[in-house]
């Protein structure tokens, strides 16, 4: 008897579980919430995956553009006109990408999504070097200003050495070192100007770094002379 009851209860439980499971699977299919691959509706796995991948691509590009815009906006060595020109360029591309993002989000079919995704992919490919080119333009301008500043520094140091030769003859050795450093500075300025002319951003940075390091060494030597000969700081 107990065996019969036990067996009957087990069958009932199994029936309820199987019915529930089927309902869980079939109900969404019946209302169209789930479609199988190739179905073409806006909620298919392939659609969602493609849509999200395209959105990720767009968002990544927009983030890079925003970061580039901030760097240009906050750069203290760029002229307002160059800033405006570059920002207009970057903002134009960002606006286009934002429009594409809306189109991707509003696509309802695989066909629509595929068209928009291909457009986005092509647009990014065409403009992939926009930041690179704008940054090169900015670096070239900074390099030109830096070259002029280095030349002014050179002239100031030469005047200073003329005065120090009279005021501080005891430091003739350090003065001679500075004279040699001026020669090196002239060579570096020529190399910087060459890099600027060819708009070689990497070479511009390399030469600027060399000059910056040289100037620090020269300033240190000037400080030595200043201290040794009691030249006032103010």
């Amino acid at each position: 008897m107990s065996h019969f009851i036990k067996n009957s209860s087990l069958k009932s439980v199994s029936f309820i579980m199987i019915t529930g499971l089927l309902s869980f699977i079939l109900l969404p299919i019946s209302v169209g919430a789930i479609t199988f691959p190739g179905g073409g509706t806006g909620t298919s796995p392939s659609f969602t995956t493609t849509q999200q991948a395209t959105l990720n691509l767009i968002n990544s590009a927009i983030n890079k553009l925003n970061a580039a815009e901030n760097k240009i906006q906050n750069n203290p060595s760029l002229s307002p006109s160059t800033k405006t020109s570059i920002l207009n360029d970057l903002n134009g591309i960002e606006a286009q990408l934002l429009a594409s993002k809306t189109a991707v989000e509003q696509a309802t079919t695989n066909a629509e999504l595929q068209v928009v995704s291909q457009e986005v992919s092509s647009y990014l490919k065409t403009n992939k070097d926009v930041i690179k080119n704008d940054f090169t333009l900015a670096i070239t301008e900074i390099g030109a200003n830096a070259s002029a500043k280095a030349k002014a520094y050179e002239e100031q140091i030469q005047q200073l050495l003329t005065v120090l030769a009279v005021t501080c003859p005891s430091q003739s050795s350090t003065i001679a070192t500075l004279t040699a450093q001026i020669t090196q500075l002239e060579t570096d300025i020529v190399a910087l100007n060459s890099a600027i002319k060819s708009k070689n951003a990497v070479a511009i940075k390399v030469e600027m770094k060399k000059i910056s390091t040289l100037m620090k060494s020269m300033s240190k030597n000037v400080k030595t002379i200043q201290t040794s000969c009691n030249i006032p700081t103010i």
Partner: protein
Amino acid sequence: MYKILIAIVGLVLVAGVVYFLTKGSTTNPQTIKINNTPFGSAPTDSTGPSNSVNSVNTLPETTAPQGTTIKPPTGTSQDTSQTADKKQATTLINQTNASAGEFDTMNNSANQLDQNTSL
């Protein structure tokens, strides 16, 4: 007799007065001249002594013995020149420091821009 004596005495007195007036002075008035030359210049004609007042204006030249360094007193033009040179040196040093600082800022600005960034 008295009259003859008085006449002789009178003649002697008159002759004496005349001599005194004409030849009696021992100073020759022709040698006295007034020196009108300006102070400090050499007189054109002077009968005075050689070390007259005019010659006092010129100090005798002195020569430092060889190997002697004459130290200028403080406050001379040489001191002023040295101070001016140091002041000019300070100005130029400050200018070079400012230029070097501006160059460093530009160097950092360029380094903030990565020319290899692609979309």
